[in-house]
């Protein structure tokens, strides 16, 4: 025991004496830790922000068609539906005994490339992302009346919009879309950033969607027929159809029952899709990026550890004499081995702790910025099981990397080290 204490004392004193060199090794370990754990976190968060873009939605309902397409437009607001479903079906789904709530979505309009989503108050009440978080407004109010819109965080940021701003929606995407310039909208609220597709969308009410299209038929304004904005209330603004439905069940156990019932509706053919399954399928297709990221982080670690071993090996010739002196005073080769391994252990451990502290600092201070500007939700949280494995791996690899030089030191000729008159 006292021998180990002596070795620890010597390792500490000697390390302090060589703090310049060791500082460099420490730096490379810190860098490896930050990069590896940071990349791992980024990787899992990418997957999570994809697969958990929507949370708590048990079924997606749309006109019959490709499941992947339904996920893309209902959740990611990408592309468009070829068919709508009638509003009577929306009400039928809502009345199913298994169903707790439905969120109708009506899409197809855009504002400067950002999708416009028409929905009702259930969206705010029931939409959840990432481990059960609900939406909230950063400024203004979430409720939108006729010709009022609530913006996702990224839309407001990119277009630099403030509350009270008047904006014009356009019909469909394309190069020169027709605009609804006769019926401008007012920004009444801006949502807090979520790291989900919500950030890239503009929200209006189903009535507003109906209102801007009262004088349109089949994707074009009716020739010679104009309804002024102040006159639209005279029309029935109850939507006739929507693009998709997000459905929450009272109990997930009834998911297949509900699915079957919706498929069996008479009249139009509907698709009811389990979003988790469909999103996993899409992510499999997009998962290459994730794998590349993982490969990069492994390469980064290997580089870092090779640097550690190389620096230790290089530092060892400086230490030849020091180690020989210790042996001349009775330290055994095993003591020398322990001395060096001990140094490797402490050095790596210190590097890990500093690396984690830096990462935590970066996440705490930069997290909100990353969320707003890159839609990346990186948060401060205790290491996951996998990250613990990575940390353990770095520590083990650090000790092993230092063992190489330690074994070399073991075989140093004693007399050789002592007789050099340095």
């Amino acid at each position, binding site marked *: 025991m*006292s021998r180990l204490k*002596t070795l620890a*004392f*010597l390792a500490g*004193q*000697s390390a*302090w*004496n060589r703090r310049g060199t060791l500082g460099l090794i420490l730096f490379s370990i810190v860098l490896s830790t930050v990069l590896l754990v940071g990349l791992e976190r980024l990787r899992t968060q990418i997957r999570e922000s994809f697969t958990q873009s929507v949370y708590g939605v048990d079924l997606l309902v749309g006109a019959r068609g490709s499941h992947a397409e339904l996920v893309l437009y209902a959740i990611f607001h990408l592309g468009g539906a070829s068919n709508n479903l009638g509003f009577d079906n929306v009400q039928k789904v809502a009345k199913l005994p298994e169903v707790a709530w439905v969120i109708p979505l009506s899409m197809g309009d855009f504002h400067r490339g950002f999708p416009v989503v028409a929905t009702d108050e259930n969206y705010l009440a029931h939409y959840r992302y990432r481990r059960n978080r609900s939406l909230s407004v950063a400024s203004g109010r979430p409720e939108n009346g006729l010709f009022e819109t609530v913006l996702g965080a990224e839309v407001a940021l990119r277009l630099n919009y403030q509350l009270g701003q008047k904006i014009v929606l356009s019909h469909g995407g394309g190069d020169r879309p027709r605009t609804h310039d006769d019926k401008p909208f007012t920004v009444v609220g801006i949502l807090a950033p979520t790291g989900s597709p919500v950030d890239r969308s503009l929200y209006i009410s189903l009535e507003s969607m109906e209102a801007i299209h009262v004088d349109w038929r089949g994707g074009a304004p009716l020739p010679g027929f104009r309804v002024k904005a102040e006159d639209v209330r005279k029309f029935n603004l109850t939507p006739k159809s929507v693009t998709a439905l997000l459905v929450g069940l009272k109990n997930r156990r009834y998911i297949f029952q509900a699915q079957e019932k919706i498929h069996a509706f008479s009249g139009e053919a509907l698709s009811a899709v389990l979003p988790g399954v469909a999103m996993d399928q899409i992510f499999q297709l997009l998962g290459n990026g994730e794998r590349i990221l993982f490969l990069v982080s492994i390469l980064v670690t290997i580089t870092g550890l090779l640097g550690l071993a190389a620096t230790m090996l290089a530092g060892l010739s400086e230490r030849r*004499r*020091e180690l*020989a*002196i*210790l*042996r*001349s*005073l*009775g*330290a*055994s*080769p*095993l*003591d020398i081995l322990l001395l060096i391994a001990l140094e490797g252990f402490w050095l790596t451990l210190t590097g890990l702790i500093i690396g984690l502290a830096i990462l935590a600092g970066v996440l705490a201070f930069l997290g909100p910025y990353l969320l707003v500007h890159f839609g990346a939700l990186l948060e401060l949280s205790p290491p996951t099981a996998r990250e613990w494995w990575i940390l353990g791996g770095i520590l083990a690899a650090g000790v092993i990397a230092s063992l190489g030089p330690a074994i070399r030191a073991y075989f140093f000729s*004693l*007399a050789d080290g*002592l*007789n*050099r*008159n*340095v």
Partner: protein
Amino acid sequence: MVDNPAGPIPAVLLTGVTFKWPGQEPLLTIERLKIDQGETVFVAGPSGSGKSTLLSLIAGLLSPTEGQILVHGQPLSALSGPKRDRFRGDKIGLIFQSFNLLPYLSAQDNVSLAARLSPFRRERAIKAFGSVAAATESLLTSLDLEKESWLRPADRLSVGQRQRVAAARALLGQPPLIMADEPTSSLDADRRLAFIDLLLSECQKAGASVLFVSHDSSLAPRFTTQVSVSDLKPSKKNGPA
């Protein structure tokens, strides 16, 4: 063991020892060298005559090509590497020409390191002085090292101070054999003699045998025995001496 089996065990006994690096002429041949306990031996000889090699052999830092070396009756060849390190740490105090202090440790820590690495010397230091720290301080005091330099790192000590720290380290815990390799080469003549007297009186107090190697024969009269490396070579005639 050889000619006087009833007497005390000699501190050092070399018989028929040869050392050479592979493929080279023998660097050192010694027919017989015996150092009794308490004897102080001055080994003279020009540079390159193998004086340092002799010390390395007795310290077990090198192994002889041929022959046997006994230190306090213990044949070194019978000890495995780690055991030999331990044996050396316990029984031999070494003072090197280049002192071989750890530059980052204080004078005090350099001295007490000998006890930290050798339980045997640690026990003896505690037995004689109550604690390793007390033993260290006593040695540093009697070797005339000013108190204000005790806590100074070794690389900030003067040459003379380093030498005395190295001597204190060798003496701590009273190892029965002290060996010194040209420890005075960087001192002027007056201070050399002063240092030798100090060292020898400390060794005498501890009852240690001394093997002192130097090319400076002016120091030789201070020792009880003087030998030259060339005298130790086997005579040209056949048969044992």
